[in-house]
């Protein structure tokens, strides 16, 4: 039995990409305003030592967001990436995402297709957001790409990621989009420099760097994720992106 219930999801392709995405059928949704949340989690071999902390971080963010006043206006998509990008579940209402299955959901091993994952995560919110808006719904989005290292396995370039970001921002489908690149366990200056450069080249709105990956640090990251998601959800209707929080 699959870990995540994907019964009501339909799959879609993304133009120019090997990877697609899935999302809940729009006529099954129970709210007219949606904040699309995409989390792309690095599962390359180097993440293995703190895999459980990453899972707990996602689980805790989901748990916190489910308690939020606007929980029914949140949809979550989760992908993991190593050699390839794998969707663990497509866009689902957060109220249909019980926290428990996120424990043990990641499988580590392999290289880091960081650009492919970022491109897919951003392209998917744009495409699904376009479908929502075409049916009269309102949507904005927030994308988190969590990694511990540089890309070494992607077909996509930072320039392609940048185009995806630009399309998300200028496409007039999503009311606003916030993109956050999170570097965890970044101990080497070389990796830090590379991720910061990627953030700039690809046009991420924010780069958050954590030099540790212990339980405490990732619990704070969970708090940051849930607060950022909720603030972006509150911004829906204001026409602009949310004010970014501090870690």
């Amino acid at each position: 039995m699959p870990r995540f219930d994907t019964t009501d999801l339909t799959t879609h392709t993304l133009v120019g990409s090997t990877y697609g995405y899935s999302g809940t059928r729009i006529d099954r949704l129970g709210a007219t305003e949606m904040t699309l949340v995409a989390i792309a989690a690095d599962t390359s071999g180097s993440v293995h030592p703190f895999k459980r902390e990453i899972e707990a971080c996602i689980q805790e963010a989901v748990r916190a967001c489910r308690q939020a006043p606007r929980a029914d206006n949140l949809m979550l998509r989760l992908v993991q990436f190593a050699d390839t990008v794998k969707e663990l579940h497509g866009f689902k209402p957060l109220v249909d995402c019980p926290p428990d299955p996120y424990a043990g959901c990641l499988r580590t091993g392999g290289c880091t297709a960081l650009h492919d994952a970022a491109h897919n995560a951003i392209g998917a919110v744009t495409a699904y957001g376009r479908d929502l808006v075409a049916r009269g719904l309102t949507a904005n989005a927030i994308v988190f790409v969590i990694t511990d290292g540089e890309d070494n396995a992607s077909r996509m370039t930072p320039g392609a990621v940048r185009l995806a970001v630009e399309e998300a921002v200028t496409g007039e489908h999503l009311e606003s989009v916030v993109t956050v690149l999170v570097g965890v366990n970044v101990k080497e200056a070389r990796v830090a420099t590379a991720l910061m450069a990627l953030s700039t080249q690809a046009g991420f709105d924010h780069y958050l760097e954590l030099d540790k990956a212990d339980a405490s640090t990732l619990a704070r990251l969970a708090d940051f994720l849930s607060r950022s998601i909720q603030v972006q959800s509150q911004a829906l209707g204001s026409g602009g992106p949310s004010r970014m929080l501090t870690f």
Partner: protein
Amino acid sequence: MDVVAGGRRTTLGPACFVARGGEASVYARDGVAWKIYADAARTPPEAKLAALRALAAPGVVAPIHTVHSPTGERVGLTLPLLDGWSPLVRLFPPAFQKREGIDVDAVVALVDRLRHLVHLAHAGGAVVGDLNEVNVLVRPDWADLALIDVDSWAIAGFPATALAESVRDRHAARPSMETDWFAFAVLAFQLLVGVHPYRGRHPTARTLDARMQQDLAVFHPDVVVPPMVDLARLPPGWRGWFEDVLLRRHRGPPPSDPGAPVSRAAQTATGVTSETLRTHDGPVLGLAASPEGLWTWTADATFLAGRRMGPAPPAGAVPLVDGPPVWLLRDGEHVEAVDLEGQRRPTGVAVRELVSDGSRVLALCGGTLARLRVRHVGGDRVVVAVPLATIQPACTVLFRGCAVTAGPHGTWLHRATAAGVEQVRVRALDDAVVVDAHSGERATVVVARRPSGLVRLVVADGTVTEAATDDPTAILVELPGVLLVQDGGTLHLRDARTPHAPGRSVQAALPPGVVAHAGRPTAAEGPAVLTFSLRGPHDA
């Protein structure tokens, strides 16, 4: 942080922190809420707090004490603590209401409670101003409401100090009691229907702000409404008021009686009563409901909500009410359009046949079934034929809102809907000749002749029900929550959620040409425009 209120000193720290807003932080301690302003100078003046204290009532969270710093500086105020209450926005999604078992009656009761609280504020001389989705809290059992953030209200000569964009009246310079009713309408609409009334998608007004400025609420035909939105949840007694406020800039409180949802009234109805909406100088030749209001026309003029808007339609013209009416005149296959200024121009549309149901016009254009629409091109309103389906013209007949094809592959019904067209194979008509048909958004009524006599069919949800009849006319009226099917002197009331199921019947006859307007059947009889209500067992 040490603070003093009501003669008591206390410490506010992270352990009792609740939330931080744009201008203040809120703490919960000693059974009260402490609102501490980031800028102490923003603490409301004592005279304003005194005026607000006088408003204290169940549901109005008025200040208790002024909070001072240990040095005596005014830094905030204390308020009654509403532990566990949620912001109103939480109740907006239909999924939440369904999951929590909050039915439409409970929602109507909450809206009525909100109406009472706004009245209460006004009676105390206050203007709420920032009546938004997070300044109204709901009790944990979802059965009561309270207004918070009252220190932002306008009272005793002090202006309102906040106003959210989501409820700001784009046609008013500053908050007033009138704009409070606009904000109330926006909140009540979201609570009842699950969508902000100016959401949805419009081809040109792409932002919420633009739609609010142009009065393009979700009632407007050009606005694409999300699929989960059910306007039938609006109480019939308030439907017209919502349209007046959201489309026509009316500002005032809703009628005191929201009325039972028509669907519920239909379950106990024993008959129909009518009242005169207005009387014209001469016989009313036709009427059509549109988001702008009710259009009527006589031999002398065309009226909107009783106001003269233009000359009478040309003789023999077919009305197309897609916004202000356009009159369509056929000259052979060619169609000319006459606007409200009386200007006549060719449309470029060629038709073999066209039929109006009062507002919508269907046409047979060669082998295509089309709906005629009015589009804005540049500064002009242009009539275009929007193709709906390919049909066999030789064996297709047009009716109001639909077409019937009786061909070698059986009988097919083509129903025009907001989304385009729905094509239904109706085997029950294979051995019959269709005499009349009338189609709405949710159902179609067909009267057909069989060797055994006339039958009346109702096609809805892919299901066909039929009954013998003596009345050759098909009349269907779709109201919020209920469908009315006329059959001679009997009016059948079908629940809109289960339109295929025969509903209750009452002895009543609605006049031909009846339309749904402001949630009620509306028709013309001589010079009078009549509106009808379902009469219950206890009505006089």
